[in-house]
């Protein structure tokens, strides 16, 4: 059940800031509130996966104690416990239509690539879930379960669903942080390869005064110093962003502005982004 929104005093109860000075308290959730709501909803629905496997949950037959929560095209995601810590298990599987031997190698390469880039990203100062164990036999990555986190996709959708709220203003600081993180990543010559708002998570636990951007899903990543590759990386995000969140050109431009401010080589990258956009447009005009 959704919480009632028409409560008297706001959750924050702050009256000093400008938002609170309007008669009605703001209804746009902060990242922390959003995470709290999601976690509450998960435990209320008896979501044993969110409870970290729980007691007596048999889980999946192949992965005892782990419960499936997402079945993708190339990977299955489970929740459970690994050596006492809440963990996410990402299992890549073979695609039936490809040659089995070749495919196994490709699947292992992706798993290895994801682990390698996670290590590289962390060295560059990009927060990612901590990897606990990689099983190259079964192409499984066991990693930290970001429990005090939400995808930026869910957060943007939640903010925009508040009617009459100033969602642009609420999201601005988050977009700023995302741009900065991507700049750091590209300055470390890391190309994510699959930037979407589902792969950009926002973490905030009680010890953190501000939300933190955490990048996930490095299965298609690569290493490159070429502005072209970085431009394409941003283009992929732009496409995904605007199709997932319609009419957000202005919002997305904050990411690019922040990227430009923070990246050492942003000029060439943005130039390439413009070129790629033009190519994309031409292609759609012809096709």
């Amino acid at each position, binding site marked *: 059940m959704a919480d009632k929104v028409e409560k008297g005093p706001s959750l924050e109860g702050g009256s000093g800031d400008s938002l609170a000075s309007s008669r009605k308290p703001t209804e746009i959730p902060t990242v922390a509130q959003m995470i709290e709501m999601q976690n509450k909803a998960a435990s209320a629905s008896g979501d044993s996966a969110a409870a970290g496997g729980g007691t007596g949950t048999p889980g999946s037959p192949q992965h005892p104690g782990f419960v499936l929560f997402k079945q993708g095209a190339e990977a299955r995601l489970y929740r459970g416990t690994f050596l006492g810590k809440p963990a996410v298990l990402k299992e890549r599987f073979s695609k039936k239509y490809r040659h089995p031997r070749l495919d196994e190698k490709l699947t292992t390469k992706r798993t290895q690539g994801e682990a*390698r880039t996670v*290590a590289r990203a*962390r060295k560059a*100062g990009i927060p990612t879930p901590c*990897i606990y*164990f*990689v099983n190259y036999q079964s192409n499984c990555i066991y990693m930290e379960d970001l429990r005090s986190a939400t995808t930026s996709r869910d957060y943007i959708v939640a903010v925009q669903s508040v009617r009459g709220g100033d969602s642009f203003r609420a999201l601005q600081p988050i977009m700023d942080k995302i741009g900065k993180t991507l700049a750091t990543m590209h300055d470390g010559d890391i190309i994510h390869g699959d930037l979407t708002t589902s792969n950009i998570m926002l973490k905030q636990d009680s010890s953190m005064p501000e939300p933190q951007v955490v990048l996930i899903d490095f299965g298609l990543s690569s290493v490159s110093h070429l502005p072209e590759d970085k431009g394409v990386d941003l283009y992929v995000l732009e496409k995904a962003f605007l199709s997932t969140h319609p009419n957000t050109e202005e919002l997305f431009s904050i990411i690019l502005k922040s990227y430009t401010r923070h990246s050492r080589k942003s000029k060439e990258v943005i130039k390439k982004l413009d070129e790629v956009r033009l190519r994309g447009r031409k292609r759609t005009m012809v096709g």
Partner: protein
Amino acid sequence: MEVSTTLDLYPDTTVSMALFSGVTNGSEVRRKIMDGTIAAAVINAQMVCDPFQVLVAVNKAVHLDKLDKKKTKTVFGEILFNLSPGNNILAAYQKFGVQDAESQDVLVVLLNDLQGEQLQQVSGIIQGTRIPLESLKDIRDEQQIIKLYKISESERSVGRLEEVVVCRMATKDAG
């Protein structure tokens, strides 16, 4: 005081840890590891951030042991090797194994010591004082750990030290 954990992925394997302080017979302990009298990983406790770090190393060692893909001869050698950031086995033993120091703190890791007999045997050899495992956090030498793993300021900022180290350990063979 012996703390035991069952490996989630290998429920037939139980890991026990015991911490000893002020150990004075390091070279004897090392000799007895080499000749097989001691069947345990005896770890330089200064280099351990957290028991979780050790469990991660044990899990990987048991995993590779079952696949017959160990880099070292024994599962205990493999635990030390997994703790190390590099691929040099000797260097791993030197940094993470028993030291030459006159007095040192060591963490003893045993497998499947269900009756506690192994711990009893090892305790009979090690000349030092058993202390609670919780004392690890006071013993750990953060500066030395950061130096050995070459953890930069930016990497350090990503999370808690044990997480930074664990992620390095888990991804070291990713190329």
